[in-house]
C-alpha cells in the first residue's frame, strides 16, 4: 500500500488557510466567550467557515453538496481546530456525516448531507449509554417498529453538541436482540427529544444527555446494519479525534517553548536549564511520533486500508496520551502562571483530559490494538 508520508503543496496551502482562519476567528479570547454560553459557538463564524471555506463539507462528496476532499483533508482541519481549541459543533457534524456516509441509503445521503455540508443544519451522533463503555454492542436503547414507523426508548449520554443538534443519528437495537446483532442507526429530529446540557470538564466541548420516550425515528440505511457500520464509524471518529489531539499537542509544545525562551529566572531564560531543555526534547519526540500515527491513520481511512481497526486504535491511544502529556508538561513549565484561569494552558489541558477518555481511553485502545493486530 503506497501510504502517504507527506502532504502535497496544495494540502499544505489548505492547512495554512484553515490555520489563518482559526487564528483570525477563534483566538482564545473568543473561545472563552463561547465556552461560557450554552450554545457554544458563534453562528456568524460557523456560517463563514461552512459557506466560505466549506469546512463542514470537506469530506462529503460533491454529489451530496460537499467539497469532495478526502479524510486526510478532514483530519488536517481537525488538527488545526485542535490547535485552536475551536469551540463549535464541528466534530459532532463530522460524526453525523460520517455515519450517514457509511450507513445511509443513496436517497438518504442525497436528502441529509447537503444541509450538513453547507452548515445550515447541525447534526450529531448519539451512541454512548454507560459512560465507561464505548462499544456499540452494549446498547440498550430500543427501536420498536409499528405501522407508523420506529419509536425509540432509552437514553444517551455524552452526546457531543446533542443539545443544539437539529438532527440526531441514534444507535438503537430491536427489542429482544443483543450484542452486535440487532443494532440499527436512526435519524431523529433534535426538537423531538428531551435533552439537557451536561456540565462538562472541557467547557469547549458541549455534551448532552438525551432521553427517548416513544420518540419517532427513521431508519438510517439497513435494519440491523449497524453491527457492521458502527465499528467503522467509530474507527473514523477515533482517527479524527487523534488528529485534533496532535494539533493541540503541537500547540502545547509551541507554547512551552515560547514561555521557556521568554521567562527569566536566576538571570537566564528557564529554557537554558537542561531540565527544561530535555523535557522539551522529549516532548518534541512524543509530538512528532503522535503526528506520524495520526497522519498514517488518516491515510489508512482514506485508502480504506485493511489494518484500519488496529491503526485507528494505535493513533487514538498514542495521540491522546501525547496530548495529555504535552498539556501537563506545558503547564509544569509555566509554573504557577500555568495553573491560573487567565492562562490558556488549562483550556488545552481540559480538552486533552476529555479526549483521553472520549471514545475509549488509551488502555482500551491499546488492548484493541493488540487484539486487532495482524502481523
Amino acid at each position, binding site marked *: 500500500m503506497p501510504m502517504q508520508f507527506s502532504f502535497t503543496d496544495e494540502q499544505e496551502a489548505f492547512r495554512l488557510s484553515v490555520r489563518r482562519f482559526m487564528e483570525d476567528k477563534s483566538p482564545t479570547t473568543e473561545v472563552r466567550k463561547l465556552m461560557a454560553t450554552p450554545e457554544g459557538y458563534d453562528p456568524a463564524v460557523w456560517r463563514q467557515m461552512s459557506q466560505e471555506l466549506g469546512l463542514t463539507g470537506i469530506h462529503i462528496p460533491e454529489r451530496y453538496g460537499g467539497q469532495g476532499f478526502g479524510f486526510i483533508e478532514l483530519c488536517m482541519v481537525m488538527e488545526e481546530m485542535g490547535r485552536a481549541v475551536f469551540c463549535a459543533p464541528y466534530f459532532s457534524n463530522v460524526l453525523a456525516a460520517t455515519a450517514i456516509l457509511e450507513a445511509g441509503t443513496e436517497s438518504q445521503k442525497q436528502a441529509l448531507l447537503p444541509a450538513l455540508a453547507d452548515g445550515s443544519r447541525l447534526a450529531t451522533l448519539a451512541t454512548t449509554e454507560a459512560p*465507561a463503555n464505548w462499544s456499540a454492542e452494549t446498547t440498550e436503547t430500543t427501536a420498536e417498529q409499528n405501522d407508523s414507523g420506529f419509536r425509540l426508548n432509552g437514553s444517551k449520554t455524552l452526546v457531543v453538541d446533542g443539545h443544539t443538534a437539529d438532527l440526531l443519528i441514534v444507535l438503537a437495537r430491536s427489542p429482544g436482540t443483543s450484542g452486535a446483532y440487532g443494532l440499527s442507526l436512526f435519524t431523529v429530529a433534535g426538537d423531538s427529544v428531551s435533552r439537557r446540557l451536561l*456540565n462538562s470538564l472541557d467547557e469547549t466541548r458541549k455534551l448532552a444527555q438525551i432521553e427517548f420516550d416513544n420518540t419517532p425515528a427513521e431508519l438510517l440505511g439497513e435494519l440491523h446494519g449497524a453491527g457492521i457500520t458502527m465499528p467503522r464509524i467509530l474507527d473514523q471518529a477515533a482517527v479524527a479525534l487523534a488528529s485534533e489531539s496532535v494539533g493541540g499537542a503541537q500547540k502545547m509544545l509551541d507554547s512551552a517553548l515560547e514561555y521557556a525562551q521568554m521567562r527569566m*529566572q536566576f538571570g*537566564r531564560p528557564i529554557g537554558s536549564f537542561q531540565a527544561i531543555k530535555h523535557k522539551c526534547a522529549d516532548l518534541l519526540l512524543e509530538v512528532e511520533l503522535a503526528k506520524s500515527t495520526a497522519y498514517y491513520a488518516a491515510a489508512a481511512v482514506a485508502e480504506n486500508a485493511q489494518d484500519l481497526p488496529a491503526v485507528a486504535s494505535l493513533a487514538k491511544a498514542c495521540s491522546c496520551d501525547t496530548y495529555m502529556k504535552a498539556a501537563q508538561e506545558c503547564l*509544569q513549565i509555566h509554573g*504557577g502562571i500555568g495553573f491560573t484561569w487567565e492562562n490558556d494552558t488549562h483550556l488545552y489541558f481540559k480538552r486533552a*483530559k476529555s479526549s483521553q477518555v472520549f471514545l475509549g*481511553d488509551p488502555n482500551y485502545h491499546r488492548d484493541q490494538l493488540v487484539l486487532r493486530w495482524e502481523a
Partner: protein
Amino acid sequence: MSESTSTTARETQIRAEVRAWLEDNWDPNLSLHEWRNRLIDSGWGCASWPEQWYGKGLSVGLGAVVDDEIRQFGAVSVAKAGVRMLAAATILEHGSDLHKEKFLRPLLTGEDTWCQLFSEPGSGSDLAGLTTRADFDGEHWVINGQKVWTTSAHHAQYGMLLARTNWDVPKHQGMTYFLIEMEQPGVEVRPLKQMNGHASFNEIFFTDAKIAPEFMVSTEGNGWKVAMTTLAHERRLADGIRSWARGEKGSGRVFDELRAEIATVMEPYKWYPQRAGRVDLLLERAKATGRINDPVVRQAIAEVLIKAKAAEWTGRRVKAAHALGRPPGPEGSLGKLAGSQVARLAAHAHTLIAGGEAMLAGDDGAMNGLISEILVSVPAESIAGGTDEIQRNIISERSLGMPKEARTDIDRPFRDVPRNTVS
C-alpha cells in the same frame, strides 16, 4: 524501637501542671478572644515562647507536649496556625519590641489575620529576583510593585512584605523585610482564579503604598535573611493547619466562634485534598464502578498505593530518625517530590476508573464533581511550594552533594541581571 520519644519525668510534670491550670480556668462559654487572652496570659498558650512574650521559655519539644495536653483536655488553643504563625515566628526572631508589643497578642487571639507578600509574577522559583520596590521618601517607605499567590490577603490586616530597597548590590543583598498594613489606599487586592475554578489566592498591587520606618524588620538590606525564617516555618504550615482544624467538635460559645474562624481560614484550602490526588478514594471508587475487575485498572491503582504508602512510611522514617537525633537522611524535598508523583498517578488512576465520566464536571461529574476537581487540581501539586524541578535541584545539591549549578545572577548588581520585563 518505636517512633515516639520515651516519656520523661519532666514531661509528666508539665502535663500535670497544664491540666491543673486548665481544670481551674477552662470555660467553653467564654468568647474565643476572652478565652485566648486568658490562655495567653497564663503562658501556656505558647509555652515555648520567651517568658516576657506570653511564653514559659520551654523547649520546642516540651511546647508540643503542652499543646498536646491542651488538645487532649479538649480545650481550645491560641490561633496558632496558618500564615499568622509565620508572622509570629519571624517577629519573635527578628522583630523589635514595638513589633512584638503591637502584633503578637492580637495575632494569638485570632483578631489579626496576616498574609505573606513574597512571590511575584516575575519571580517564582527565583524568589530573590523580586522587583517590588520600597523607596524612602524621607518620611515613609513607598511601595510599588505586584505580589501574587497570596492566600487570604482579602481579609488580612497585615502583610509580611519583602521588597527591594537597593538595586546596586547583588540580588540577595538588596531586599528589606517590612510589616505592612493592608487596609490602606495604595494596596489593591484582587482574587486570582485558578484553572479548577477556585480563587484561593490573590494578586496584590501596590501603588505608592506607605509603611512607617519603624515597621521595617531587622535592617535595610537584611530582608533575605529574615525571609528565610518565615520560609523555614512555612514548610510546617500545611501540617499545622490540618491538625488545628481538628478541634472543632466541642460545644459552647468558644467552639462556635472557633468553628467560624476555622471556616474562614480553611476556605482557600478546601481543594487541597483533591490537589493531592485523593488516594483514599481509589479502591472505593474502583469497587463502586466495577472497574476493580479490570486487571489493567488494578495495576494503576497498585502503582498509586505503592508510592503513597512508601512515601508515608518514608515520612515516618524521617520522623523516627529525627526523634532519635540521627542525621535526618531523606528530607522534605523528597516527600514533596513523592507527593507530586502520587498526585499525578492518582489522577491517572481516577481517570481510568471514571472512564467517560471523566468528561463531566460539577453536578454531572463522578462523586458530584469531586473526581473532576481532582483532575484539574493535581497539576498544582508539582508546582506550589517549589516545582518538582526545584526539588530535584535541592535533593541533588543538598542530599547528594552534587555540584551546584553555575550562577551568573548573584555576583553583580541586581540592576544588571537579566530579568523578566513584563509579568
